[in-house]
């Protein structure tokens, strides 16, 4: 129990560290956005001499309107307010370009990002584990060699290149899939066939690409399986007449999964980050795409808000994965002695 508490506590600490770092980037650094904007406005408005108090007041108000932070306040007051607003009211400020609360924009976009990422990760992990096991069982065969070469080649090609090529082939040239958007125009949201088919159609290519991104584990799993299959207890199990399927799943699979599990967890961390790249390529209007647009517009409250959002989602994902580790590894009782990754 103390392990779970510790683990949750750690996540909370990381969350606060991130929010603090975001604030520091935003407000404290000499070349952060708030400071830069203030300097720019100063140069524009004040031609010579020192600015009058009215001018300073005006500049501060303009900076506040653009960034949501008044540069005139001392940093600890600003920090307290920033933290206070985020934790208590989920208030990340108001987007400069869209003129809507940042939280509402991101919260509306979040499910779509989760949809793509989780399906991609789940598919990628499942298929790569199955392939890894199949490779291990047919070790040395032509299938094994071929798949090993394929896996190595797969790691040399970044997932966004897969995304671009898929887009060019299946969307621009063959026209099988749409090249942007997340639902078909003119369908009514709800539980009806055209709407669901439209969603699947739009999500197919992004999911395919994040599937490729999550595909790396096959080789590692193959190695673990082979190592595990050589152990004595497997031979004993065979001699006892336990069925092959049971040995493959309960004995080999389970024990070979443990070392890969940590890398799956790390996959979660890179997954949400990579959604910025993926969603931009596919014009898929979800969190990553919103973030990209905010970057292009220099919409700082939205950028900072989405960074905190990405971190929270990642933390949550890793926390869930970490807390469920004990289910696949019965030896970990609370996991107090274990490294967390």
């Amino acid at each position, binding site marked *: 129990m103390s392990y779970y508490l510790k683990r949750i506590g*750690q*996540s909370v*600490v*990381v969350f606060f*560290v*991130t929010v603090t*770092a*975001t604030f520091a*980037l935003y407000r404290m650094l000499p*070349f*952060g*956005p708030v400071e830069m904007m203030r300097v720019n406005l100063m140069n524009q408005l004040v031609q010579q001499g020192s600015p009058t108090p009215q001018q300073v007041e005006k500049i501060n108000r303009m900076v506040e309107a653009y960034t949501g932070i008044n540069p005139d306040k001392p940093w600890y007051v600003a920090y307290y307010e920033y933290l206070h607003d985020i934790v208590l009211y989920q208030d990340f400020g108001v987007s400069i370009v869209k003129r809507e609360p940042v939280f509402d924009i991101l919260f509306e976009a979040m499910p779509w990002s989760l949809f793509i990422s989780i399906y991609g990760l789940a598919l990628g992990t499942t298929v790569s584990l199955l392939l890894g096991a199949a490779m291990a069982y047919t070790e040395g065969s032509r299938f094994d060699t071929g798949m090993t070469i394929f896996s*190595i*080649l797969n*790691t*040399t*090609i*970044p997932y*966004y*290149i897969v995304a*671009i*090529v898929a887009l*060019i082939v299946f969307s*621009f*040239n063959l026209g099988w899939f749409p090249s942007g958007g997340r639902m078909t125009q003119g369908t009514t949201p709800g539980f009806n066939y055209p709407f669901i088919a439209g969603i699947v159609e739009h999500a197919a290519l992004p999911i395919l690409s994040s599937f490729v991104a999550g595909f790396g584990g096959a080789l590692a799993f193959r190695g673990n399986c082979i190592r595990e299959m050589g152990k004595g207890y497997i031979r004993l199990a065979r001699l006892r007449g336990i069925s092959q399927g049971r040995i493959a799943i309960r004995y080999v699979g389970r024990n070979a999964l443990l070392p890969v599990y940590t890398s799956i967890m*790390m996959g979660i*961390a*890179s997954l*949400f*980050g*990579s959604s*910025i*790249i993926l969603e*931009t*390529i596919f014009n898929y209007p979800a969190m990553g795409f919103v*973030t*990209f647009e905010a*970057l*292009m517009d*220099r919409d700082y409250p939205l*950028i*900072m808000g*989405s*960074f905190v959002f*990405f*971190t929270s989602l*990642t*933390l949550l994902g*890793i926390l869930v994965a970490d807390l469920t580790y004990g289910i696949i590894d019965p030896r970990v009782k609370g996991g107090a002695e274990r*490294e*967390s*990754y």
Partner: protein
Amino acid sequence: MRATDDDTPSDDTPTRDDDSGRDVRTDGGLDDGGDARTDGGTGDETVFTRTSDVPTLTRREKARRTFDRRIYAPLAVLVRDWRAVVGGTILVTFLLTGLVAWVSASNWWLLESVVLVEQPSVMEGPIFTPPFQSMAYPLGTGVMGKSIFEQLVHAAPAMIQMILAGALLSVTIGTLIGTVAGYRGGAIDKVLMSLTDVVLTIPGIALIIVLAAIWEPRSPLIVGLLLGIDNWPRLARTIRSEVLSVREESFTEASRIMGLSQFTILRRDIISNLMPYISINFANGARTIIFESVALYFLGILPFTTLNWGVMMNEAYNGADLTNPSQLHWLFAPMLTIAVVSLGFILFAQGLDRIFNVRLRARHESTTADAESQ
């Protein structure tokens, strides 16, 4: 180790010879002609006074042995491993390309007139020349008539700078934090590992993108450093868990007993044993930095200051008619380059894995004890 030497009369040889600190080599007094057996006295030859007659090496022999260990044996392993050969060839070609581009673009007095590959310029050729058609534009041209081959060549120096800066930064930080945390243990370990965990959980690409958007870094070196921030925590964790086992080894303990400084122990005993992990992580880090930087340049998040594969992809993606197969070579050329260079890094890392495999290396050394006894 040195205890056996202490009783020999000519005690000056071991310190001169025993430079590696953990080579078990008992030395007889060989300056006086090699009749070491008589040195310890004839009557009471005991286990403590007897010395073995391993010949002292002359300077040339020592040099040969060093060469054999450090250069010949690793190369022999490398050459016998096809992955290392292919990977190494790709990487050397990549570095040479960078050198060629640097020489061609350089304004330094001797090199100013040397132009091996021209800088790409607008309308130097017809637009959309297909690849492999003319010698002047080996990979064809894009919509502005710029030679794709020249663009690729002149993008190499910036990419190399970026990769080196980023991979070096992440490897240095990772090794430093991992070794110190693992070796010292205690409170320092706790603090450093908590820090690592925090950085590990922060989604790296998102952080880098936010930082890149705020600072708009222009120099490829800075971009590389920025991308390196994300890479070190994993290495630090791996290294720490390795250090935990190495620090209990007898040679580390011996160094501690001899009173060597902690820095020396870390450098000679710990880090030298972790070189496989470090070099493999360097290669993997390099690959990650290529991927991430190209993505950021492709999306236009980083400002287009230097010629770069990502910038090329961006121009091609926006400039070419993507439904027209005869224009796609513009986009595929940089993509293929990325894939080939990262394949080079991956294969070379796997080859390095074999170099650091001690048993395999011993088989290729001609001056090891086994080789001499045969």
